[in-house]
Every structure is written in structure tokens, then in C-alpha cells.
């Protein structure tokens, strides 16, 4: 008799388990929360947190189902980024993944996502290889091909740069790629350049700078990340360099000014967002909400992560399904999405949206908008 009751209980419990209702929708996110580029990951996550607050449910099957974002830290390391995606797909069973924000991690993570056929939306990974020949990888930003050309044009026309030294962080695919595209575009204008090398996390650049400055460049181009940009600028100025400072979107972090101080005054860089730039109707409300929530200036990484979250939710709603393949197709067919950093449309067969770019500069210890460049 006892055995019968046990069997009954097991049967009822199993029924309950299988008859489970979908009580929440899980989305995966892998970002660089610790490590040398932790700033970007954390800023991206702040953007997503705000997005979750403003849009906590997704409209699926006639109901508003709460969304839960499972965040895993990839430590800024490629192997860990791949691991994180594996865990999100195999263990957490998410149908779509947000992040990472660096190209190196996105390349590694994307390889796994592509293989497992789950859509991945990197917010700020700009290296073209991230989406090249891949069906499942998308991004919310422009690519380095465009960025390199923009930077070269700006350097030649605005900064009147003719002989540039490029500080290349050889540990990052993003930096190597951006440097290459800049070189190609700059050479077309007739400019000359040479390179100096360093590693992410380096603190002392006096050796490279002393060597570089002896060749009299008029501009230092730093396609790397904010911490090194700040330190390079500081040490270059201390060594007596008086020319222009130029950087890519890796510069857009408050640490740049915190670490660089007065030495980064006048530095110009390309990025995707500035709170004063009128990039789309969604920009102003986002800026207001961000100030209200965090009481500080919204940055490009948070803005694009915010867009990524909303893109993912839009895709789920469009597909009306949690099947990764259908979500991917819905994502690919998105047109005219009003992102806070500009309108996003994915052209046929490509994960690269056509987006505007922004050039900022550092003035009086603040990030100030210089120009907006529309495609």
C-alpha cells in the first residue's frame, strides 16, 4: 500500500514538471565584467539593466511574460567568452544571446553560437570578421571598415595629419583590424604612417614613445582601449609631444578622463553615441531615463546594449516563438528599428546595420560632441 502512494506522488509530480508553463523568458548575456576592459562590459550591462526596467516583459502568445537576462562574465578572455556561450546555450537553454562588446571575445563566442545555431547580438564588436560568413551573428554598431575610413578622413581633413604614428595593441583583434583599415584609407589620401606595439594592460610606454617621437609624427593614433589611450597620451605629453591625439571607439569610457586628466584634452575619437547627438527619436527619452536612473552621462556601450536588448525582444515578438532559428530569422528581417543610437536595418544576408557615427572630443574634462556623420 505504501508503495502505491509513493508511485502516486511521483506520477503527480512528474505531471506537474512536464506540464510546466512558460513563466519567464530567458535571454543570455555574456560581457566583460572583469578584466582589463571591464569598463565596457559594465557600461553595457548598465544599459541592459535600464532596458529591462523600461521593458520588463515581452509580448508572447498573447501574454506579457517577464524577461530574465542571465548574465555571465567572460573576464575579457577569449576562451572564457566561448565557455560562457556554451554554458548559456547548453545549460541555461537561452534562445538568443547579447554581447560581448569586444571583437576578440565576439569572434570566439560567435564561433560557438554559429555552430549551435543560436542568434548572437554583439553590441559594440566592430571587427568585420565577427559577422562575416555567419548567419547567426549580428551587431548593433558599424564596422571597422567604415570607422577606419572615417578616422582617416577626419585626420587628413580636420587634424591636417600627414605623418601618423599608430599605437597598436597586438593583443586585440579589434585594434589590429582598425589599424589596418585606417592605414588603407589614410594611404589613399597620401599620408604616411608607422606603427608601435604594446599589449593590453601595459602601463609603461616610454620605450615605444621615445622611439616614435624621434621620428617626428604630427599625430598619434590610438585605436586601442581607454586605459592605455589615457596612459599613452599622458606619457606622450610628458615627453613633449604637442601634436594631435586621435582614437577609435575604444576611448569612450569615463576612465579615459579619470586616468588621463589634462593630458587627454583635445583628443578626438569616433564612436556611436553622444547624448547631445540627435540620432533618432528614441535618443532623447533614453538620455533622460539614463540620467534619472544613474545620474551620469549615458555612454555608447550602454546605449548600444540597450538597443541590443530591445532588438532581441522585438525579434521574439516578431517571431512569436522561442525557437532560436525563428528568432534568428526575425532578427535578420528587422527594418527601421528605432535604436537610441540610430536606426537599425539589417540588409539582406548581413548582420551589419548601416548606422551613423559620431565624433567626440575631450574639452575641459568633459566628452563633447563634435560632429555627427550620417551614412
Amino acid at each position, binding site marked *: 500500500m505504501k508503495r502505491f502512494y509513493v508511485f502516486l506522488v511521483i506520477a503527480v509530480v512528474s505531471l506537474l514538471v512536464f506540464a510546466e508553463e512558460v513563466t519567464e523568458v530567458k535571454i543570455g548575456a555574456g560581457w566583460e565584467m572583469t578584466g582589463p576592459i571591464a569598463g565596457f562590459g559594465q557600461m553595457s550591462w548598465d544599459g541592459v539593466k535600464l532596458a529591462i526596467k523600461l521593458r520588463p516583459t515581452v509580448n508572447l502568445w498573447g501574454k506579457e511574460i517577464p524577461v530574465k537576462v542571465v548574465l555571465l562574465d567572460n573576464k575579457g578572455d577569449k576562451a572564457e567568452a566561448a565557455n560562457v556561450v556554451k554554458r548559456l546555450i547548453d545549460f541555461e537553454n537561452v534562445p538568443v544571446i547579447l554581447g560581448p562588446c569586444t571583437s576578440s571575445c565576439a569572434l570566439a563566442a560567435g*564561433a560557438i553560437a554559429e555552430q549551435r545555431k543560436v542568434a548572437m547580438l554583439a553590441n559594440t564588436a566592430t571587427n568585420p570578421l565577427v559577422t562575416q560568413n555567419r548567419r547567426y551573428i549580428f551587431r548593433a554598431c558599424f564596422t571597422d571598415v567604415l570607422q577606419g575610413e572615417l578616422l582617416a578622413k577626419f585626420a587628413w581633413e580636420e587634424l591636417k595629419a600627414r605623418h601618423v604614428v599608430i599605437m597598436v595593441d597586438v593583443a586585440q583583434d579589434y585594434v589590429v583590424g582598425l589599424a589596418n583599415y585606417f592605414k588603407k584609407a589614410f594611404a589613399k589620401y597620401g599620408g604616411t604612417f608607422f606603427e608601435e606595439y604594446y599589449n593590453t594592460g601595459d602601463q609603461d610606454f616610454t620605450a615605444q614613445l621615445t622611439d616614435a617621437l624621434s621620428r617626428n609624427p604630427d599625430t598619434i593614433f590610438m585605436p586601442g582601449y581607454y586605459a592605455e589611450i589615457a596612459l599613452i597620451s599622458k606619457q606622450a605629453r610628458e615627453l613633449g609631444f604637442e601634436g594631435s591625439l586621435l582614437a577609435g571607439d575604444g576611448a569612450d569610457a569615463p576612465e579615459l578622463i579619470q586616468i588621463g586628466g589634462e593630458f587627454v584634452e583635445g583628443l578626438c575619437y569616433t564612436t556611436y553615441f553622444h547624448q547631445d547627438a540627435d540620432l533618432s527619436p528614441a535618443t532623447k527619452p533614453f538620455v533622460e531615463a539614463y540620467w534619472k536612473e544613474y545620474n551620469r552621462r549615458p555612454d555608447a556601450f550602454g546605449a548600444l546594449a540597450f538597443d541590443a536588448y530591445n532588438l532581441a525582444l522585438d525579434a521574439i515578438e516578431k517571431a512569436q516563438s522561442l525557437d532560436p532559428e525563428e528568432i534568428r530569422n526575425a532578427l535578420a528581417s528587422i527594418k527601421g528599428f528605432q535604436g537610441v543610437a540610430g536606426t537599425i536595418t539589417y540588409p539582406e544576408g548581413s548582420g551589419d546595420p548601416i548606422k551613423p557615427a559620431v565624433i567626440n572630443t575631450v574639452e575641459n574634462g568633459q566628452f563633447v560632441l563634435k560632429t555627427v556623420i550620417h551614412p
Partner: protein
Amino acid sequence: MQRKTLSTKTQFFLTLFLVLGIWFLLFLAKNNASEYVILILNLIAINVIFATTLTFINGITGIFSLGHAGFIAIGAYVSSLLTLPIEQKEMSFLIKPLIYPLNKVEMSFFPACIIAGLVSALFGYIVAAPSLRLIGDYLAIATLGLGETIRIIANNTWSITNGALGLKAIPPYTNLWWTWGWAFVTVLVIASLVKSSYGRALKAIREDSLAAKAMGINVFSHQVMSFVLGSFFAGIGGALWAHLITTIDPKSFMFVKTFEILIMTVLGGLGSISGAIIGAAIYTVGLEFLRVLEAPFSIGSITFPGIPGMRMVVLSLLLILLMLFWRRGIMGRRELSWDGLYNLLRRIRFSSRGDRA
């Protein structure tokens, strides 16, 4: 109560059944388990190889080497360079092209592993000669420096290792058969070595190298052999690992890697091969389990926010507590054996039936 020894024949069959049993479980896992579980199983086997080799060098021979990550790195890079498809090599090497003949070579997994192990062993040989003249703490620091130097060289030789960018899209050849197969081979070789007179000589060297020398043991050549053998299998482990995670760069081989293997061996008992296996298994599973701490989780109605980095804090705390309160680890220096198990079972059986003289 007398301690009974099982006959050799019985022991052999028991081992055979164990091996077949594991083979069967692996077969089940391969076909039914999720990718994630398979990943964990692979990692356990690879960590077993790492831990066994480290305990062999550090615990059994007594050479306190902290440079293990260097040999793993060599194995990983050599095997990957040999197996990467040629077009992939051209695509990946952005700063400087890969040197000849590596850029024209593309071989299959098994020979690449063997070559990786041999190159690792060669480096072990080169490194052993100068380092083994040092003792204790100095040896530890010197091997640490050597491991780091290997990593720094890998970080800077763009035309061989692609420098800091590392290698990606390594063909994912690793599967349960390769990892567990190599783990078996490693444990078998090292265990047989330790049980033989060679192993006894190593233990004598560990206890008191001067006395061993006085007894006529060629301390230096024994230590070198131990180092070389350990690095050979460590290299193979590195090759398996590289083809599992499919993307490597010099940052994967920092001192942290050696530290993790150290925790595994200390947990299981430095100086015990079965300890190394147990330690590796517990560590691998535990680490994944601890990921729970890094994502928000709730107990009842209390939600704990996820704290990135909590895993390593717990791990290092664990090591400190281990060393303070349980230096021996789980196995100490003893080994698991059929005899030991049998006698343990007998004791339990007898004690549950009441005491018998």
C-alpha cells in the same frame, strides 16, 4: 583482524571491469548527455592528466615546479599549429605570416598530439638541467619564471604563435575517447613507474636527496627523467585542451593555470595519484557548480545578486583552509587500491554484524 590481500588475478579482473564500466558510461554519455555534461567530462579527464603529472613531479619526486603552465602551453600551441587548416592560418596571422614549414602543414590529431608531447618533453629536458641545481623555494621561483618566460615568448613571436592574438578556430578534435583514453595511458604509465623500483628511488630522492645520492641513486638523472615524463604528458594534455576550447592565446597559460592544478593536487593529496584523480574531478565539477555564485540566485525569497569573481575568491579561500587544516588532502600520500577497498568493505561488514575478534 587480519588484513587480506587479493590475488593478482582478482585485482586484474577488478581493474578490467572498472575500465569496461567506465567505457560503457562514456558511451552512454556520448549519446545521451547534453553538450555541457560532455564538456565537463572532457575537462575532468584533461585535468586528471594535468594533476597526475604535477603530482608526479611535485609530490612524488619532490621537485617543487611551478612552471607547469608553460609545458601545457607548448603542447597546446604545437599541436594547434600542426592541425590548423592552412587557410585558417593565413587568415589568423594578421601581423606576421606563419613561418615555413608550419604554414604548409596540416596533419591529423594523433600525430600532432604525439609531436606536441615530444616538444614539451624536449623543453622539459632543456629546462631541467639548469633548474634542478636549485632547491626548494628557489626552484619554485625559477620554474615559475620559466613558465612565465615561455608564455612571454609565445606572446611575442608573432611569426610562430601569432603573438597575443592567439590561435582560433582550432579543429575541435577532442572527444570523450581521446581525453579519457589519454588519461588512462597517463595514469597507467605513471602508476606503473611509481610502483617499480624507479618510483621507490624517486620517493627516496623526495625524502632526502643527499641520502639517496649516498645510496648510489643518480639523483640528477632520475629527476630529469621525472621532469621530462611529466612534461610529455602535460603537453599532450595541453593539446587535448586546445582542441577542446578551440581558441587559445598566451593569457590562457598564466600562472593561474598552474595554481588551479596545484589546488587539484593539494586537494587530493600531493604525492598520491588516486588523490590527483579525485582532486581533479572534485575541482572541475566544483568550479562549474560554483558558477552559481556568480549569477543571481535565490534561496526561498532571498535573492543574492550575482558577484562576478566570487568563484576564485572561494577557491583561494579553499586552498588556504586546506593548507591550514588538512594539509594532507583527501588521500595524503596513500593510494587507492583494490586491497585497501576490500579491507575497508570487510571492516564495515564485520562492524555491522557486531565485533568479531
